[in-house]
């Protein structure tokens, strides 16, 4: 899952980036409205954390422009102005949720997690495909109730696939959503992660669609 953080305060920005990276997201940071807008326009993000009071271009304008251009990624706005009219303005501009400053990072993490999950159409914090259960909050995976140890990259791949069940996910899409923009992308590593996942989960749940990518089925494990 890839997240964009747009916040002009350098300290707060790095705190958010660190916390989100620790939570397993690929994170890009922008420090003003124009940079944020550019990144949002060019990179596929699964969620955006957007400050309202930004230099160059304020957050609401950025958001409105994105929505006008048909970008639908969930956006969490950070606002120091916590009056209801500010919240109404934010939501009407196309925000999906808001957090009032000052906040605890956990609050932001929980909201981002909920937004990503909601965008994928999942109602709970646990995703399930056949025998595999993935707990988003605890970042834990079990097969038939038995915990499975995954590296963070393996977890990210599985999480993305399970968020988008029954859909063919190309390798490019996976790399785009799993790594931030500074990462040296090599789609071969994806194949390595898929292979390890298949072994660790002891399942052929992850299906290879030749020439296209991978798919995970939502229902019972295919026989």
């Amino acid at each position: 899952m890839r997240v964009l953080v747009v916040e002009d305060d350098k300290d707060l920005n790095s705190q958010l980036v660190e916390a989100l990276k620790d939570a397993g997201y690929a994170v890009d940071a922008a420090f003003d409205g124009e940079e944020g807008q550019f990144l949002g326009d060019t990179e596929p993000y699964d969620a955006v954390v957007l400050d309202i009071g930004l230099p160059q271009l304020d957050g609401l304008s950025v958001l409105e422009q994105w929505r006008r251009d048909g970008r639908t990624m969930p956006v969490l706005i950070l606002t120091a102005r916590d009056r209801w009219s500010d919240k109404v303005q934010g939501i009407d501009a196309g925000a999906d949720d808001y957090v009032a400053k000052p906040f605890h990072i956990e609050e932001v993490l929980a909201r981002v997690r909920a937004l990503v999950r909601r965008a994928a159409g999942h109602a709970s914090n646990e995703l399930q495909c056949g025998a595999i259960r993935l707990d988003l909050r605890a970042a834990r995976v079990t097969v038939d109730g038995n915990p499975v140890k995954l590296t963070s990259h393996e977890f990210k791949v599985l999480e993305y696939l399970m968020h988008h069940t029954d859909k063919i996910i190309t390798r490019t899409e996976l790399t785009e959503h799993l790594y931030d923009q500074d990462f040296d992308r090599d789609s071969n590593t994806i194949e390595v992660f898929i292979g390890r996942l298949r072994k660790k989960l002891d399942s052929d749940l992850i299906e290879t669609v030749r020439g296209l990518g991978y798919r995970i089925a939502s229902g019972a494990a295919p026989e």
Partner: protein
Amino acid sequence: MAGTTGSLSFRLALYSAAGSTIALIAAGIIFTTLFRQSVERNFDDRLDFLSRALVGASIAGERLTLDQTAAIGEPRFALPQSGWYWQIRDGASGEILAASASLFGNILPELDLPASGDDIRVHAFRGPGGRQLRSLERRVQPSDIQSYAILIAGDAEALAEDVTRFRNTITLTLGLFSILLALGAALLIRFGLRPLRKLRASLSRVRLGEAERLEGQYPSEIAPVVDDLNALLKSNREIVERARTHVGNLAHALKTPLAVLQNDAADSTDPANARVREQTQVMNEQITHHLNRARMAAHTNVIGAVTPVNEVVEGLARVMRKVHQDKGLMIHVAIPEHIKFRGERHDFEEMVGNLIDNACKWANSHVVVRASQMRGKSRDSMILTVVDDGPGLPQDTESEALSRGERLDETKPGSGLGLSIVRELVRIYDGNLVLEASEVGGLRVRLTLPVSTES
């Protein structure tokens, strides 16, 4: 309040009463004097005529040809003590040569006419019987050696009576006139001061928050005052708005650094961090608290604000539907378009927003917001209800939530229920807040607020 320097009406009434009284008394005196002079002149003319008639009847050449009984056009000269007399003396010796029968042997006093010349003199004196007489004396000199002093006297009592009667009549007339004048003055004051009463009514509407400025046309004497007052109201509003903006900017500027500090101190077991956490928490609470207080303090001075209820609640509902999306809440808003809250938009949002947010947090599936307008005795009001189907408040919590006073509010800004600020705002707007069990099992919050009846 400024001290009063008496009533303007009273002052006007006093001045006009004093002025007209003096004018009327002077008029009375002048009229009476003129009348007296006119009546006396008439009387004197008559005496003069009678005197000439007497001269014509009595003097032929140098000799006196008259007898006592001659009636010279006036029968009262023959009646004894009638008050009408004539008397002829010798001009040189002063000897009485002839007198009217009416004198009855009495003598009229000699007058001090100059020794020569054809002179006429008018004199008032008391005659026989003590009657008030008015006489005219003339000297006739038929030849160089002979002269006569002819005195004619008439009863002047009637004259005095006429003057008295006239004075009474004129006093009565002028008295009536003064009453009419007083009525006129009262009407004048009433209608003349009407713009002032209108100004007062307009000002009180502003004070009650029903209008933003003084409306209407005023006479040129008051119009500058009205313009100045309007300018004052406007600058007052601007000052309040500016102060509020500054407080807001300061508070919001502090929030980002606070967030940084708070999060920096969050993930450590260092006791110094614990203190930072604690203190940032306190700072945050203080900011929120004083920001709210500044807003509210400012709002009591902001007048004439009107807020469309439906529009605001729909906006809040949009936020709630999105924010509480996971719960799949049905948020139903049923508010007639015409209802308008008489007060600040942000205040209304703060009150209703917190109430709806609470309801959404507790509700299982439904939240209903309704409003209706009520006609009151002194002013109209609206009742806004927020109903949820959550667990509701336990009986004791409910009463605690309601009985919490200001003291607790000050020490605990932004308490868990968010109700302290709501209650504070409700108090400022002289409204009413009731928490009760709803028929669907959850909580029903009933908020009564003033409405604007302006269209």
